[in-house]
């Protein structure tokens, strides 16, 4: 299976290992990630204002590029996934926005119309629904036995569930199922879907640290030794606060380790 792949800004810079391991693992698991040509930064936050048009265009261009190839578009970063998924849903549901966006697109060198046809998938959804966690477990060479891993979902993958359709927003299981598939022990803790503070850590460092601290304390109290995430910003916020007592790593790193293809 070949997917269009939208890495996003941070996976090309600070989060290279999230990107690299994902590509390696895809190969090992029998699917291919084809990077969308000339993709632009999605903006990292979904433009919520109903009158925001231009800020939604980068997402639309990537979505269209995938659709044109007849491929589903796969993301890794929670923020990119959130933006692409929601903009796509807007293009399906919001006629007014659709018209305005397409008016912009009509001015481009190679105009087209886009109506939300693309299918947006997160890498984890590919593992769950296309590869299958049972098949994944069968391909694991180095089971991470005895590792107590807390899944840190954060907010952007899950909410709003009516659009994201990713998992139960209050009681998600996809990460835990992943952890089981790679042979480790998932640690379920109530704060796994609370927000790490997101972009607020730039200017409101104390607030963000307090939020991250609550999550970490909660995970530690339930016995987690390490947290996994799909989001570079979550990793930054969590690590900054509690990196020493409770490290946070990208889920693809453990995936690569379990598949025996992790490059040192």
């Amino acid at each position, binding site marked *: 299976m070949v997917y269009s792949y939208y890495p996003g800004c941070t996976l090309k810079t600070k989060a290279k290992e999230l990107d690299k391991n994902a590509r390696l693992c895809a190969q090992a698991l029998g699917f291919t990630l084809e990077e969308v040509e000339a993709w632009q930064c999605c903006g*990292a936050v979904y433009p919520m204002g109903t009158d925001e048009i231009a800020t939604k265009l980068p997402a639309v261009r990537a979505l269209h590029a995938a659709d044109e190839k007849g491929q589903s578009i796969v993301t890794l970063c929670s923020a990119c996934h959130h933006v692409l998924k929601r903009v796509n849903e807007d293009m399906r549901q919001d006629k007014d926005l659709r018209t305005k966006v397409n008016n912009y697109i009509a001015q481009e060198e190679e105009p087209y119309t886009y109506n939300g046809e693309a299918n947006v998938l997160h890498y984890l959804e590919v593992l769950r629904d296309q590869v299958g966690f049972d098949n994944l477990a069968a391909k694991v060479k180095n089971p991470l036995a005895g590792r107590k891993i807390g899944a840190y979902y954060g907010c952007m993958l899950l909410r709003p569930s009516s659009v994201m359709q990713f998992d139960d927003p209050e009681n998600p299981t996809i990460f835990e199922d992943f952890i089981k598939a790679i042979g480790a022990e998932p640690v379920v803790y109530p704060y796994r879907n609370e927000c790490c503070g997101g972009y607020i850590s730039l200017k409101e460092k104390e607030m963000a640290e307090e939020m991250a601290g609550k999550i970490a304390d909660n995970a530690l109290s339930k016995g987690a030794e390490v947290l996994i995430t799909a989001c570079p910003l979550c990793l*930054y916020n969590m690590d900054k606060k509690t990196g020493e007592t409770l490290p946070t790593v990208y889920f693809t790193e453990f995936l690569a380790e379990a598949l025996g293809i992790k490059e040192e």
Partner: protein
Amino acid sequence: MHGNNDYQQEQIRTISGAEDRKCMKCGKCSASCPSYDSMDIRPHQFVSYLRGGDIDAMLSSKSIWKCISCFACVERCPRDVKPAQIIEAARLMVIRQQGENYLSPDDVPELLDPELPQQLLASAFRKYAK
């Protein structure tokens, strides 16, 4: 002045796409908000201020810089009001005005650290500046 207020009220309703009239004042949005303690006006108050037309209070509130758009309030609201979108609309109303950006490129160098991901700068500029 009152006329301008009515206009702003409708603006916020339009930009947010939220429905303040559906609110039954249960407070679940505020109860779910991780930024609650840092806010001067709380999520449920944004809804009731919009309902009552107290737009100035919303626009001058510090809370618009504290909401992290985590959508916990949107997810759990039993009336489908979408409080986060009201706060976002208020924030947009402010930063769309000349000279009202909350973050300037000049501020950035001293906020940086070696681990800071690009995503953080991209999102902060989207939220704080136009």
